[in-house]
């Protein structure tokens, strides 16, 4: 008999007023008992709506059935047959709009905690298995992957399993992309990303850091070096600013800079040299995951007051529900329907306030969301000493401007054939945020997978 509880087995979490002062993981993960109990809520539906909601088609009811009977390793094997990074996905995927959004149990009550179960299986495997991936027999063909984010790592892993000699070229000093520089430790411990990267290395993937393609080497030079195909997974890392007065003041950061200092460069740990401004009152501008992460980091770095300033309503925020909920619990103050118009500095050029206007929602725009319009004479100032701009990013022009034959669209995204992920240049493939603009981890992984398949077909008869 399935467990008919309307609620998910609750996730053990650090208390909000404790965790907002440390960088340890917020959600501690299910115990084996909790996982089994949650797994028994699954109805094992014949038509598997949840699988249709998953961009990489994880065999959801099958793995959950194994969890229910305590066969955790078997469950892990089922997940990893289609998803190479389950410990990551279980933590950061927007399940509410993917698998769990389609789950039958969600019609009346909460859906099955698919993400939590996926995470449990991955963590269980990491803790209990000493099995080491083996380097497959080489087929002698070299492939270059540019960027060690989820798309590049997935593409590299799939190709390595097929016997290709894969080298990943990463601009930063550490592999992982947004998983290491953007998403904070308290949501995704970096040790997990490092383990996934180590797995790839065991498979024979070579990771070369400090290699900025377009600068250190060009795509053409990669071909000259004997790489037969190139996958570009360089992400969408170019930060946007609003173009308002005062953005040059000290204390104005892009979310990318703030998060990089904090997560990649570990400004929160004493043993690291990285400086970051010690803020008292912070305004984060934006409403996505990036804004939530920046706000929650600011809180943990000691800010007393942290605002999220977003021009639309709470309902329209693109961030994951769970992140919004966590941020609120941790004491972040939401100023929805507010928009900055100017940042004000003191005599030393440091931020002292931000002038905003109130907004109201008008007619729906192209994206279908109601367009925010300024309320007349609603200007007010917020006293803040730090402003973090989290209003979006776009692909970095470095590669497209140094590589012939790569077409991009109006937003600077690489144009690809959607089936094969091949760019407008033969032998060059691309995927992830570099193609879609800022999106999700799982979509980036899906694109890396698709490209690996196409590259294998392309090189199969070469």
């Amino acid at each position, binding site marked *: 008999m399935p467990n008919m509880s309307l609620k998910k087995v609750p996730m053990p979490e650090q208390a909000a007023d404790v965790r907002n002062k440390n960088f340890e993981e917020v959600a501690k993960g299910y115990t084996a008992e909790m996982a089994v109990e949650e797994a028994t809520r699954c109805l094992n539906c014949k038509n598997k709506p949840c699988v249709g909601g998953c961009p990489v088609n994880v065999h959801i009811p099958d793995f959950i059935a194994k969890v229910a009977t305590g066969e955790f390793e078997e469950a892990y094997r089922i997940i990893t047959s289609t998803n190479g990074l389950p410990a990551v996905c279980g933590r950061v995927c927007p399940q509410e709009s993917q698998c769990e959004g389609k789950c039958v149990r969600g019609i009346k009550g909460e859906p099955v905690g698919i993400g939590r179960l996926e995470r449990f299986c991955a963590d269980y495997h990491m803790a209990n298995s000493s099995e080491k991936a083996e380097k497959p027999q080489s087929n002698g063909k070299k492939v270059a992957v540019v960027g060690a984010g989820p798309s590049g790592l997935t593409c590299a892993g799939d190709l390595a399993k097929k016997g290709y000699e894969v080298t990943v070229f990463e601009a930063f000093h550490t592999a992982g992309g947004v998983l290491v520089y953007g998403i904070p430790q308290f949501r995704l411990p970096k040790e997990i990303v490092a383990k996934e990267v180590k797995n790839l290395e065991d498979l024979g993937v070579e990771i070369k850091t*400090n290699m900025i393609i377009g*600068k*250190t*080497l060009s795509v053409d030079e990669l071909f000259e070096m004997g790489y037969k195909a190139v996958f570009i997974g360089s992400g969408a890392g*170019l930060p946007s600013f609003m173009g308002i007065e005062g953005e040059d003041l000290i204390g104005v950061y892009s979310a990318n800079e703030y998060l990089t200092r904090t997560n990649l460069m570990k400004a929160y740990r004493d043993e690291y040299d990285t400086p970051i401004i010690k803020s008292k009152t912070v305004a984060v501008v934006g409403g996505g995951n990036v804004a939530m992460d920046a706000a929650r980091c600011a809180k943990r770095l000691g800010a007393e007051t942290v605002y999220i300033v977003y021009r639309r309503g709470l309902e329209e925020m693109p961030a994951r529900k769970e992140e919004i909920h966590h941020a609120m619990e941790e004491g972040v103050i939401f100023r929805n329907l507010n928009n900055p118009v100017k940042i004000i500095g003191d005599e030393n050029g440091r931020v002292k306030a931000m002038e905003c206007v109130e907004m109201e929602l008008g007619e729906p725009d192209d994206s279908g969301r109601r367009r925010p319009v300024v309320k007349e004479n609603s200007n007010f100032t917020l006293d803040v000493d730090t402003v973090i701009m989290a209003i979006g990013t776009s692909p*970095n022009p470095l590669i497209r401007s140094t590589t012939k034959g790569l077409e991009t669209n109006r937003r600077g995204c690489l144009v690809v054939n959607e089936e094969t992920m091949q760019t407008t240049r033969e032998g060059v493939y691309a995927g992830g945020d570099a193609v879609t603009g800022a999106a999700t981890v799982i979509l980036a992984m899906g694109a890396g997978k698709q490209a690996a398949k196409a590259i294998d077909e392309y090189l199969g008869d070469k």
Partner: protein
Amino acid sequence: MYKIVKKRQLNENVVLMEIEAPFVAKKALAGQFIILRVDEYGERIPLTVADYDHEKGTVTIIFQIVGATTKLLSTLNEGDCLKDFAGPLGKATELDGVKKACVIGGGVGCAIAYPSAKALFNNGAQVDVIAGFRNKDIVILEEEFRAVSHNLYITTDDGSYGEKGFVTDKLKALIEAGNQYDLVLAIGPVPMMKFVSKTTEPYGIKTLVSLNPIMIDGSGMCGGCRVNVGGEIKFACVDGPDFDGHQVNFDELMRRNSAYKEQEAHSRENCRLYRKEAE
């Protein structure tokens, strides 16, 4: 890991290191820079490629000890390795077609200006160099500059070596004496670059300066290096580091560079090294 194959102390506070970095060495051009990290706990700091050897696969950096990271770096010796060394970054200085140039270096800025003087000289341009220092004890690269210039003028603030005065005095004198430069390249402390730009403006001489904002990635992803040039926001790491000196907002740059002043002072006091020394 990137091995230090040569180390030389140029003056009390300035150190030269030649580093094994074949990929960077192969591509580097005058005006470009690298970003390094000494070890796992270190900051990423940008330093200009002062010279390179394609054959040996080495890159030379010359740095002044100003704070925690440069201090830590200066304690390493030949045979030691750097954790990270990425580049070459930024745009190369545009030197094509220049027939007569005045290259001006202030202090450690001389190290940054040297590769451009050398490239101009090798391109067959007429090269005058003005190298300014506070005093005799900190003069660096005299021999090197002499080899790549037609005229080398050294100035010191106190007159203890070369001519007494600022580089701008010498520049003005040279222009007034009828030298027709089609490029002035000025690299050094921000106020020096500001005043060189002011000096050349009335004569309408093209003036390039090399900006040194705080950087992290050096590839255009953080925006920390943004500078105001001609009223537009530019990312110095990808759009520069060279910019038209007549368009740069120097005051803003000076302000932004002081962002971490307190913490830098703090980290000098509490720096891992200084802590070690105290133990």
